[in-house]
């Protein structure tokens, strides 16, 4: 590849939402990187103002069709803090069940349909079908099971309808959940095979010293609760989170990106959770991982697929236990008291920490809202990865270089629909 050149991808494929990529190479060095977004702004925070608190989770679900549960849960939890609701344990279990269902669905979607084709040089999953139809079929079965978990608890898998502030609209019956255990042995087998398959993928080598941010609670692999921790020693509550990050504008781009106050970029998502909570993964998962020569931490963002597949297997194993031990709650939800106040919460979306903060007035209408989605937190890191990759990009022929750059971005499973309002909108021509 020549000394001066650009890599331009006008429409990033196999990501959720509309993004583009711009890498400028001058004198053999990557001089400018932009992961841009042309997904138009949807102004969620703005139109949430004036809505009644109970509408917020359903409206927020529409930020992202791939991880609606994450949006529902982060906003419900933030609002519950204002209404001073303590959600009963059985309801927490049900929340975890539907959330894990979303992880399975979303992770398998990303692993198989969006990400894996990159490793094997296919332009889409259909290429994979030709090579290895079995793993695709098994993956689809697994994904469909994840979707079923969501549908059984939530009514449907995209924008489930049963969740609400304080819990659920009705109690999910034990028999309903038990239907999920019917083909459980197969599903469990598939999840394990998928992980093994991933561990055998040809993963490009790459190494960068990264800051990994995720929840951690010392009890269980984090989803709905925990402190915000990093591998570099950060350890704060979700309420304090906002004080430790900054919204920044880089010179070369007008896009907004999040960094830690000290100026470092950080990574959220499976790889961060995995690195910070490896000890809390099921032993069965760690066994498989370690028998393939992997472990923790993973410091190569191309290996995020390993974390994702590990979490998938973990999620399936945990779901079995949660469903088996499920006890029907006494009440479908816990009522709170409408009052003026503000509340913040973080939950672990499939793509990483999702932060929500709301202010309500005394009648329970939203007066202020702030949402920090995972993909916008990863943007700066993605760009930094691209810069790090510099030498390699410059040595490849343009087609391969472009592919590698895109691949790198897909490592983060960017969900641009969610990220949209943090990025600039002008379309780079």
């Amino acid at each position: 590849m020549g000394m001066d050149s650009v890599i331009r991808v006008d429409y990033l494929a196999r990501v959720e939402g509309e993004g583009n990529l711009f890498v400028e190479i001058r004198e053999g060095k990557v001089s400018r990187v932009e992961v841009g977004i042309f997904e138009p702004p949807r102004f969620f925070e703005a139109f949430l103002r004036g809505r009644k608190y109970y509408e917020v989770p359903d409206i927020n679900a529409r930020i992202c069709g791939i991880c609606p549960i994450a949006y529902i849960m982060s906003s419900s939890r933030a609002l519950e803090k204002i209404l001073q609701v303590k959600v009963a344990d059985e309801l927490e279990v049900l929340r975890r069940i539907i959330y894990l269902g979303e992880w399975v669905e979303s992770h398998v979607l990303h692993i198989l349909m969006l990400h894996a084709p990159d490793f094997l040089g296919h332009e889409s999953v259909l290429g994979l079908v030709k090579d290895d139809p079995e793993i695709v079929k098994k993956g689809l079965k697994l994904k469909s099971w994840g979707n079923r978990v969501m549908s059984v608890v939530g009514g449907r898998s995209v924008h489930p309808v049963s969740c609400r502030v304080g819990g659920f609209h009705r109690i999910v019956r034990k028999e309903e959940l038990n239907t999920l255990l019917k083909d459980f042995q197969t599903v469990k087998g598939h999840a394990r095979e998928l992980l093994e398959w991933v561990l055998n993928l040809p993963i490009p080598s790459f190494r960068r010293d990264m800051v990994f941010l995720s929840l951690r609670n010392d009890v269980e692999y984090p989803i709905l609760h925990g402190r915000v921790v990093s591998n570099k020693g950060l350890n704060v509550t979700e309420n304090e989170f906002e004080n430790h990050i900054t919204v920044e504008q880089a010179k070369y781009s007008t896009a907004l990106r999040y960094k830690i106050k000290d100026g470092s970029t950080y990574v959220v998502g499976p790889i961060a959770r995995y690195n910070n909570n490896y000890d809390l993964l099921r032993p069965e998962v760690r066994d498989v991982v370690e028998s393939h020569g992997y472990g923790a931490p993973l410091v190569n963002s191309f290996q995020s697929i390993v974390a994702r597949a590990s979490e998938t297997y973990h999620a399936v194993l945990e779901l079995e236990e949660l469903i088996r031990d499920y006890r029907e709650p006494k009440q479908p939800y816990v009522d709170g008291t409408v009052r003026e106040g503000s509340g913040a919460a973080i939950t672990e979306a499939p793509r990483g920490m999702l932060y929500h903060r709301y202010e309500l007035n005394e009648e329970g209408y939203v007066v202020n809202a702030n949402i920090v989605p995972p993909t916008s937190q990863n943007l700066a890191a993605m760009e930094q990865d691209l810069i790090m990759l510099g030498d390699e990009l410059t040595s490849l022929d343009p087609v391969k270089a472009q592919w590698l750059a895109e691949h790198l971005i897909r490592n983060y499973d960017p969900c641009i629909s969610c990220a949209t309002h943090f990025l600039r909108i002008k379309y780079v021509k």
Partner: protein
Amino acid sequence: MSKLRVAVYKFSSCDGCQLQFLNMEEELLQLTDMVEFALFYEARKAVEPGPYDVAFVEGAVSTTHEIEILKELREGSGILVALGACATAGGIQALRNWANVEEFKKYVYPRPEWIEVLEKVEPLSTYVKVDYEIRGCPVSKEQLLSFVLQLLKGKTPRLPVDSVCLECKRKGNVCVLVTKGIPCLGPVTMSGCGAICPSYGRGCYGCYGPMIDPRPAGLNELFKELGVSPKEIRLLFKQFTASAKEFREVHGGYG
């Protein structure tokens, strides 16, 4: 038989509707024997050039760039299908149609001057002729599949247009409105979802938009009798298909 050449594209939206293609899991591989997804960014990198037999378009139109692409898609596709509430009625983002967009920009962005969007968020039909609408936020994967299979059969696709109540009763649910006084938009909302909200103990929030020949004003009166505040009634009608003409009857035109 030659494959149906399909384009799947999106504008301002959440990706949830096009995701339903990928959610077809069990049927997906068989479907790809009959359908070629010639353009589908969420699923593949390669782009086959048009013309397409059918374009499924998710999302609302909110920038001039989107208008241009939409027009190109219309030109280049035999059949244009609006997929989901965003594409058929503007979707949730159309809530900003009742507000001052400049103020909205300032609220969300530190540099509002960079944000270029249209004054109003519109469904596809504002700009081009739409051949079919598949309702829902999101569209149901069963309906989407049925639609595609009907097309493959050469049939003018038909999806039900009557009330959610019908599906709700067929499913054997107890009416949440009559037993619990929960405000439910089922009696004026188009069926197709499987009446899932009432099945899960809550009222329908109208994500499929108005049914054929609905009576929203009558339902509004009933909600008032049930003691729901006028403001909350307006909000209920003003959600995922707020821009639908029949729902605007209740919550007001663009302010």
